């Protein structure tokens, strides 16, 4: 099983991954990379859930992770379809160029 890594380090790793993801969403301009950053944030959440579940001796967190993974897969399907639609009509998925709506 897991060696003696203190609980807080798991949470810290989760927080760092989440922050990297959030910063990536804000700074990156390619829609697919933004989406990857969102997936990174979701995985940070998964890590936090699993670590908590292990240290609290409860299965709830692990079950939640399975749901999150399933939903993330569904989200990827919808997201990639939208990216394809955008690419077909604009020829780019750079979010800076997708700026018809503003005001």
């Amino acid at each position, binding site marked *: 099983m897991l060696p003696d890594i203190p609980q807080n380090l798991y949470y810290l790793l989760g927080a760092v991954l989440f922050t990297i993801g959030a910063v990536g969403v804000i700074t990156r301009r390619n829609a697919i990379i933004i989406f990857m950053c969102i997936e990174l944030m*979701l995985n940070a959440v998964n890590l936090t859930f699993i670590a908590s579940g292990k240290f*609290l001796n409860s299965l709830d967190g692990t079950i939640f992770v399975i749901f999150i993974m399933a939903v993330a897969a569904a*989200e990827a399907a919808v997201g990639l379809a939208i*990216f394809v639609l955008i690419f077909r009509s604009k020829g780019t998925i750079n979010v800076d160029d997708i700026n018809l*709506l503003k005001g």
Partner: protein
Amino acid sequence: MDVAIPASSDFNWILPEIMLTAWALLFLLIGGLTRRASTSKACGIMCFIGTLITIFYTLRLWGANLDIFNGLYTIDDYGTFFKLIFLIVLALVTLVSLRYADREEIGSGEYYALLMFGVLGMMVMTSSHHFISIFIGLEVMSLSIYVLCGLLKGNIRSVEASLKYFLLGAFATAFLLYGMAMIYGSTGIIDVVELKKFILAKQPFSATMFVIGIGFLIVGFGFKIASVPFHMWTPDVYQGAPTSITAYMATGVKAAAFGALIRVFYTALIPFLPGWSEIVWFIAVITMCVGNITALAQRDIKRMLAYSSIAHAGYILIAFTTGDRELASSMLYYLMVYSFMNIGAFTVVIMLGRKGEDNSDLDSYAGLGARHPFIALCMSIFLLSLAGIPPLAGFIGKFYVLSAAVKAQYYWLAVIGVLNSVVAAFYYLRVMMYMYFKESAGDQGTIDKAPQYGLVMLVCVWALLHMGIFPKTFLLIAQKAISIFG
């Protein structure tokens, strides 16, 4: 760890959800088999009838309060109240879509299927106090709406709206989940009711991780209810999406997000009221101010209504800030009223549009009063209600929300709320000014006066007048719904 098998009687209680799923799957099947215009029209009519049947079965749930599926799902008056709002919204949007979706050629089977799946998600989201169910409901709703936003495949604005909503929605979901993960990490509980027991037993409980978790929850829900500073997506998405979907989002999604927000915060996090109510106080104030002031500068009606919907989220947050469970009924009443006025207003926007273009510029409303007096009259009623003019229901809603703030001694919040509704009156009345006192410039073309639109407008007008003049019945219903938190 023992595994409990849910009793088969549990399934009786989720009959409305099962029916919606069955209808939606049927429409998906039909949509996959044939794409003829006549079948999609049949789908729309079946969707409307199916919704009415579901409303009938949902009404029978009123008064029942119990947990089913080992606490994963809850049937209570609060959830039933919201289910009825969603189903009424669905019925009205379907009626509008019968014509609109036809015009824009998006009304295939899957359009109605996605509408129903969206409502299914909303229903799951508001009738559970388990984080997993709330999350699944939220995602079922959101995924349906990401697709619905982009249904006008040839229209770049619609696809752009879909992309923006998708990216920001998924981003917000990550925040919400991280909040749930932190609350779970610090307590080991993912059920709101048990969380409440845990907190009350451990008073004062203030693990850092838990407090940060509450903050993330506020951010996550803040995105969904479109409160400032998490509102950036709202105007773009509302403007770009097909107008029927905008009406659906502005009413259903907002009500669902508020439903889940109120349930989570009023059940479990009431002991932390002093902490989060200050944050929400601030969010409410900037939401109202930014929404209303930005709406002043808009010349596109759809965009203006989007900002107005942001401002209305702010008004509802006024009552939310008080954290008083007696006064919370004003939020439910407001959401109910808000749904009718928005669907009505968007119906008029749909009527004035033509295939491929929304025609939602302020100038296309010029002279509407002379050209189409009935439509202009209905639009005026919706706008006056949005502005909060008596005797319309919007006034009563605003009155109860503000008096909730006064009763809970949030005087400044009430004052800011009143000042904001004065500002708001300006841009609502400006549209009326265009309708009645401006000459229409050039040929505005004909307006599709299908009976479906007329019916929706009449229902909304009737609801606004009835709920405005005789609000007591509806307030009692809202109070009964909220009493489960008592």
